[in-house]
């Protein structure tokens, strides 16, 4: 299990122009604590320069933390980074981290060498990984001729070359088409559930995080502001309920009547029309009252349900709150 507590990272940067620039300290990460269990997928979300990438770089030992502790399976990761490197790997979005002059096979072979993967299993592993990312027919073509998506797929294979115990995925599906993204998501699930790997995932696609992650950490300005499952986060962020009502007949008059009557149960209720939908926002559970009211008013219900807030709604709301 990965246990990081109170991680912080300060950078010294030079500001201004010319030779005699002033040095300034920037706190990219102020205080972040998190845990990654083997067999689980943990999401890391952030709002505008939250410190996600710096956190990942610290967890992958690329950056030394300025403060805090970081243990991987009871081993001090700050003290023994070389031991940690053997057990982890990282996949970042984009076209970096691979050699463009080499072929896909040569890339994976080279990384296999520097990760000290035994040659007896390396060939088979390369073939499996190339098949996984759909590059088995392109293995002998130089990477510089690959499309952006193909380079990204090769990067994913590179990240798995050492069969890591913990995997850090920084926007892994950027640039991938829908089919490959879906395959990758199912493989990420497979790696966690069947291969018992601990995975940390960042992504701008909220549905991806919702679909994959067992637990989510939300960062802002270098600090952890929320954590929990997607459902817990939504429940914690939204204390109001949203109902969607679709009627066979709809008018401004109906909206006004609903608004007036529902406010008798909850004075904070808001009713608004959006196309053929009526959206009702209330601090109370008013589903029973709503259906009763429709019957009394002679309104025929086509569809009615309570809309659960999505992770994206949670992030948007949190973003508004922190910038307010």
């Amino acid at each position, binding site marked *: 299990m990965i246990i990081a507590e109170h991680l912080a990272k300060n*950078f*010294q*940067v030079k500001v201004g122009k010319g030779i005699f620039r002033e040095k300034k300290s*920037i706190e*990219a990460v102020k205080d972040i604590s998190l845990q990654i269990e083997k067999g689980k997928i943990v999401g890391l979300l952030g709002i505008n320069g939250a410190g996600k*990438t*710096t956190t990942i*770089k610290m967890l*992958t*030992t*690329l*950056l*030394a933390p300025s403060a805090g502790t970081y243990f991987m399976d009871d081993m001090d990761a700050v003290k023994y980074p*070389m*031991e940690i*490197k*053997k057990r*982890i*790997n*990282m996949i*970042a979005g984009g*076209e*970096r*981290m*691979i*050699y*463009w*002059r*080499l072929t896909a096979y*040569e890339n994976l*072979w*080279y*990384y*296999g*060498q*520097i*990760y*000290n993967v035994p*040659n007896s299993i390396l060939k088979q592993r390369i073939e499996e990984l190339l098949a996984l990312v759909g590059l088995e027919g392109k293995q002998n073509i*130089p990477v510089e001729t690959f499309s952006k998506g193909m380079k990204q797929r090769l990067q994913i294979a*590179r990240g798995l070359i*050492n069969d890591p115990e913990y995997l850090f995925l920084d926007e892994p599906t950027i640039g991938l088409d829908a089919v490959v993204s879906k395959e990758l998501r199912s493989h990420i699930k497979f790696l966690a559930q069947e291969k018992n790997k601990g995975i940390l995932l960042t992504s701008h696609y909220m549905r991806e995080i919702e679909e994959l992650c067992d637990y989510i950490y939300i960062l802002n300005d270098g600090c952890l502001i929320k954590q929990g499952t997607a459902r817990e986060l939504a429940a914690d962020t939204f204390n109001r309920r949203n109902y969607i009502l679709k009627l066979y007949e709809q008018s401004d008059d109906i909206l006004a009547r609903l608004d007036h009557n529902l406010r008798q149960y909850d004075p904070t209720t808001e009713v608004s029309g959006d196309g053929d939908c009526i959206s009702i926002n209330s601090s109370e559970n008013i589903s029973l009252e709503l259906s009763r009211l429709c019957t009394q008013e002679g309104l025929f219900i086509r569809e009615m349900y309570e809309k659960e807030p999505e992770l994206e709604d949670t992030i948007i709301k949190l973003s508004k709150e922190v910038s307010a």
Partner: protein
Amino acid sequence: MDFKVLRGTLKKELLTKYRAYPMDFFIGNVLTGFYTILGAYMMYKLLFERNMNSSFANLTGTSDYLSYVLVGSLTYLFLVRTCLNVSRSLITELREGTLESLMLAPFRRVEYFLGNMLVQTLTTTMEVMISVLVAIPFGISFQYIHIGSFLLAIVVALYSFFGISMVLGCVMLFTRDTYISQNTLFAFVFLVCGITFPSEYLPAWLRTIADFIPITGVVTLIRNSVLLGKGISEQSTIWINTLLISTVYVLIGFILMQKCEEVALEKIHS
């Protein structure tokens, strides 16, 4: 030692070089050798022929300035080619976006740099050998060469070039500059390390600096072995001094490299 990293790096670099710079790069490098020899020859013919001071022969043990300058120039060519590849290896990874994936891996740097060094040694040896063939008609003389001493001098030279490359690599990675640092170093080495004239002609303070650059010893060893036919035991002091100074460079290079890698990665993110 982990030969997998060395072998992997060797193969990767050879393939990259072959694909990035096919035959024209090799021809270009051979032409550089030719121009170096031509420059030395013209310098000799137009400036120094029949104008050599007797002090030159006293200091160098030979009055054959042409062979003196050709051996010096070819050693310098070997230094430049080798140092360029090894010292620029990590900053090239940084520029190509592979530094992070490399730094993620649990491997020791020494095999990585040796792999780079080996690639450049192989390609540069071929280039310099062709240059030597070109230099023969210009008048380079090998009649007194001491083969054993010469081969040992080459090994010491490679060790010394490796040390200098490591230190230069640290400067490059720290400053993220290649051109200013490499050209400054090479110009300085060319002027003070006895490439085209004995370092004894330099002011005392500059000579002291030259003594702490292993190239001064390397050039002397190669010249003594090739032009004067001096054996290994005859040059024991120079061997020991050059090896010691080179070791200091290697150690400083490896100690600083770890720090410079950290600084480079921090600079990427900050």
